[in-house]
């Protein structure tokens, strides 16, 4: 009987470092097969979906999408963990120097490597991974745990910013003052953020992340990487056949997709 090969994907934007990690891994874990090496977050998600590796090594700072965002996006797209489905890959983040990220990884017990990657440290990570992969029965539980970890890692630390009370949206040549109390939903759209009220829609340029720091998380819930909705305005949550969760807001026809990362907000009581 041959043991099935363990596979991995490396996402690292610096070519030399990607090569080096692959070489170090070949020494530390000869049975591991690196399926692909990619240089940015979006390609990492795409390749991970296509190749379904067992382990992901994601650099934090990458062009386009950060390693964390890519992992969250992948968690969202991953086929729902039914019987026979592949378990969500084990995640290892790689960073050169990110004080806050490292603290967060420690707090969330997420595996990480510091660059330059050192053989002894890598050996430890490999042992941990081998142990975790030997228990595939826990796949579903692990996936839930991973979702929780990613959610916490992506949550911006509680900020001391003064709460936003009014949105200044440019309309034609003027500025329209929109009270935050009237806003039902903020949605990131390309370079803009859509601000939806009962009767109108505004476009603003302030990034969603910046807005969220100034919104009360009790009042506005994040339901997707690019969507924040007023909790009290949520009318219903429905799941379609494909397993996607849709959210309806009172008074709006539009439906919003709830990311798997935030699906825990909507469990029947």
């Amino acid at each position, binding site marked *: 009987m041959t043991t099935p090969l363990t596979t991995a994907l490396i996402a690292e934007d*610096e070519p030399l470092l990607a090569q080096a990690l692959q070489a170090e891994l070949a020494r530390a874990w000869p049975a591991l097969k690196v399926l692909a090496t990619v240089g940015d977050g979006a390609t990492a998600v795409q390749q991970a979906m296509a190749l379904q590796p067992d382990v992901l090594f994601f650099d934090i700072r990458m062009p386009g999408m950060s390693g964390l965002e890519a992992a969250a996006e992948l968690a969202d797209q991953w086929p729902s963990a039914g019987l026979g489905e592949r378990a969500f890959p084990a995640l290892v983040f790689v960073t*050169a*120097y990110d004080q806050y990220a490292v603290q967060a990884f420690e707090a969330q017990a997420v595996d990480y490597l510091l660059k*330059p990657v050192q053989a002894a440290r890598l050996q430890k990570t490999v042992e941990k991974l081998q142990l975790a992969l030997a228990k595939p029965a826990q796949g579903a539980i692990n996936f839930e745990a991973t979702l929780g970890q990613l959610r916490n890692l992506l949550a911006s630390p509680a900020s001391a910013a003064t709460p936003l009370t009014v949105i200044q949206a440019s309309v034609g040549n003027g500025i329209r003052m929109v009270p935050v109390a009237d806003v039902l939903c903020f949605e990131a759209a390309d370079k803009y953020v859509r601000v939806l009220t009962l009767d109108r829609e505004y476009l603003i340029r302030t990034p969603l992340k910046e807005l969220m720091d100034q919104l009360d998380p009790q009042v506005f819930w994040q339901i997707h990487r690019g969507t924040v909705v007023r909790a009290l305005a949520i009318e219903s949550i429905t799941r379609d056949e494909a397993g996607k969760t849709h959210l309806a807001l009172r008074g709006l026809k539009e439906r919003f997709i709830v990311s798997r990362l935030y699906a825990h907000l909507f469990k029947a009581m």
Partner: protein
Amino acid sequence: MKIDWLSKLQYFLQTMAFCLAISAIQYAFQPERPYEYPLVYSLCIGFFTWALIDFGRHPLSGNSEIGWPTGIRAFLLPLGGILGAFVLGILVADSWFGWSSWEEGRRATLPSALLITALSGASVTYYFYTRSKGSYLEAQVSEVSRQASEAKLKLLETQLEPHMLFNTLANLRVLIATDPQRAQDMLDRMVAYLRATLSASRASSHALEREFERLRDYLELMAVRMGPRLRYVLDLPPELASHSVPTLLLQPLVENSIKHGLEPALQGGGITITALREGTVLTLQVSDTGVGFDNQMPLVEGFGLAQVRERLAAAYGDRGWVERTSTPGHGTTVRLHLPLSP
């Protein structure tokens, strides 16, 4: 409002000590009267003066940061405090001795007592006021110097950005095994870069030629890391090579181009650094083909550009200025203009 009880106690004890001194002086002038008289009156009046003024100053001082009122209130506080303390103090002291100072016969001593109260009350209040102001100014000075050293630290931290250092070291570690010649070259550039950065605060200016050499070191280091995602061109006309400029003036701009322009771009891009002469003006231009930014965005100026602006202003006043243009998707250009003649 937060009351500093320790300083209140301190002021109270100082006031009491002052009152003892006053009563001793009074006794020296009139040794025929028992010492108890001036002592009790002085302590009573002093106590009320302290209580009314030291506690009265807080509600009256409004937003004043020193904790003392300003304007007309600065006069009303001691005036009201001293008069009130004079009346209250005499009433309490009278009840101690069981007589009234307002009676016929005793009234004659009141004007001189009032004069002593007014003079000593005013001088003690003034003394406490200057002390409060002094400690406030002291706190201000230490706050400003703390901010200054913080800014210095922040400058060094941006120049020696840890993320850049560790990534460079990680690349170096790879090259040592695979390509020792390139590793040595990279190490030499890193040494030159570190030396220039660390001594930049000491030497205030160097030749444009040196400036371009340091930029090349930095770009070479970045080129090893980014591979084909970074291309660069340095263009320095020979006749401008020896012109003197503030050290590492362009460095933050090149860093910005990489960090905000090329690093977020999937395909990377190019950086062009040019020096050219336009009449009596030297124009230094850093332009990239990165992601750019929206010019209509509320202009948030980062630490790097703000620092360049400040250094230009410090070196050339009105004769040095910065302009920045950017097109989303096409890149950013920053131009520095400085006078060719000193």
